[in-house]
């Protein structure tokens, strides 16, 4: 049987999510045996033409050229998965979306005419249909393997859609808001990190992005009396 063809494409990003694939040290050779790595420039200079069975896309769309390129990639992809915060939300560089262009124009800069860029940084799904979005900055590599394996097998990926709070509970981590009075985005943040920040005595800062239907309105009203900051409930 023909091995499924895997391609990895990069847009505006830090490379960290595709690095997560190379960070699957225990599974990498098995993955390489199960699929044909047809296009993955960070890892290999050998490339095979599409169509591809599974395409992973990292990064956000920030240039006119990339806004075209993603359409070509979609046409070559049987299944397309956007991976990481940049590809699923526009990423940290989407902070530009909230800035006033006039403020940027007045900034000191040698040759603005050399630069071609769009005003906003946008998610892949804003441009083409996406079969699955895997959130995280960076993504969880175990979830990446699950998603890739599931989609190639034709089943639905098992990626829980609950909040980080559930991960704290299952890891036995006392709530950092209640026990330490630390502000935490866990209640509205997509799970997947394994409650990493609370495990390290830090409030969640939302690097996996919003969960489905987050109750944002309730978040600022979480009671946080000053006295809580002094009390250790453990």
């Amino acid at each position: 049987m023909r091995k499924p063809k895997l391609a990895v494409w990069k847009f505006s990003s830090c490379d960290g999510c595709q690095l997560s694939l190379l960070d699957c040290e225990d599974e990498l050779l098995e993955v390489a045996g199960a699929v044909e790595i047809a296009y993955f420039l960070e890892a290999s200079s050998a490339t095979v033409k599409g169509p591809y069975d599974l395409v992973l896309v990292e990064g956000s769309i920030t240039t006119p050229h990339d806004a075209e390129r993603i359409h070509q990639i979609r046409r070559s992809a049987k299944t397309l998965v956007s991976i990481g915060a940049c590809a699923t939300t526009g990423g940290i560089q989407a902070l530009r979306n909230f800035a006033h262009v006039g403020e940027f124009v007045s900034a000191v800069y040698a040759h603005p005419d050399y630069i071609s860029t769009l005003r906003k940084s946008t998610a892949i799904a804003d441009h083409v249909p996406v079969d699955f979005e895997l959130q995280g900055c960076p993504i969880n590599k175990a979830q990446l393997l699950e998603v890739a394996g599931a989609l190639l097998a034709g089943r639905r990926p098992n990626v829980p859609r609950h909040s980080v709070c559930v991960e704290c509970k299952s890891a036995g981590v006392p709530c950092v808001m209640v026990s330490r009075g630390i502000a935490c985005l866990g209640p509205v943040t997509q799970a997947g990190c394994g409650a990493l920040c609370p495990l390290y005595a830090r409030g969640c800062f939302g690097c996996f992005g919003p969960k489905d239907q987050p109750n944002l309105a309730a978040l600022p009203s979480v009671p946080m009396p000053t006295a809580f900051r002094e009390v250790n409930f453990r």
Partner: protein
Amino acid sequence: MTATKTIRTDYLARVEGEGGMLVKMRGGTVTDVKLRIYEPPRFFEAFLRGRPFTEAPDITARICGICPVAYQMSSCLAMESIAGAEVGGQLRALRRLLYCGEWIESHTLHVYMLHAPDFLGLASAVELAQTSPELVERALRLKKIGNDVMRVVGGREVHPINVRVGGWYSVPSKAQLQALVPDLEWALEASRETVRLVAGLQFPSFEQDVELVALDADGEYPIDRGSRLISSRGLDFPIEEFYDRVEELHVEHSNALHAVLRGRGAYLVGPCARHALHGHLLSPQAREAAAEVGLEPVVRNPFRSIVVRAVEVVHACEEALRLIAAYEPPAEPAVAVAPRAGIGHGASEAPRGVLYHRYRLADDGSIVDAKIVPPTSQNQRSIEDDLFAFVTENAGLPDDELRHRCEQAIRNYDPCISCATHFLTLEVERT
């Protein structure tokens, strides 16, 4: 009529980020060489403005998924210098340990998976696994141990979450670090094997005489910090003078600025510079490993940088073991860092070389402006100079081989293009 010839690679493989290469020749003479960086600008320096100083480590880490620790360290050092806070003792030892993890991971990735395939005529480490699975298994285990160090100390390997201005959110127990020791001992042996392996590769004869620049860390091999920059041609200045000595040029073919030394020109940062300037400060086994393969004290052949990287992995493993052996958990995970107005500088040695940050803060600790100079933008000019010289010397090679050799000449520097392209500070609307 004189024949003109263009050699180009649109998308370079096995580098971090997106770049291409263009070489133009007329007859046997090279007329133009460009390392083209079209990784889109991400404007980090622009959107850092107005944000609290405490956010800089987490935000700047996102510039690069391969060397996030370097960004976290340089930004923390800059912020702490403004507040007059000193992160010393075991808090600092943990930072150096985290950084050792990043060196082991990043260098091993480059040596085995990005660079070695060039020397072996292969497209990837996956191809190498078909003929020499034991080598690739060693590489993956070594890389994983670097990642393990980062995971225990920093929380995770890509964009660690435990680093903060002033120190850490929580510190590991002695037992947690001790658990890393058996693997690190294996890694030390494996890294010595790596040095022997890569020293036996065939290197094109090619030398470049460029000014080498590295941090000076007061008698230590520079990794996590350094207060001065020194060069192979006698420069020695505090990092606060960085912009008095270095100038950034904006060129049309690159979305990254080119850094050059004012009045001196191109320079080089990274493993070869660190080794040339501080080789005597390497750990005992790293020095032994270098001596065993007859590594020259100053490596001028950029193709041989792979050997220096391998030696630095030995150093990072031995240094990690030393730090763990001396570890006593500090009473507090961080020192207090109060917001204060001022200008601060921070520099550390990313795997690819010096990473410099400068911030100006307002009274309330919000960032007024930010400047970040990553290693790859400092090396770009040298990379182009190398290509020019290399193609000139090897103009007779068939095109395909010449193109391959040129790509390899670029990979010699382990360029991190995602890093190099973050710092243009203007956005142009063309929609």
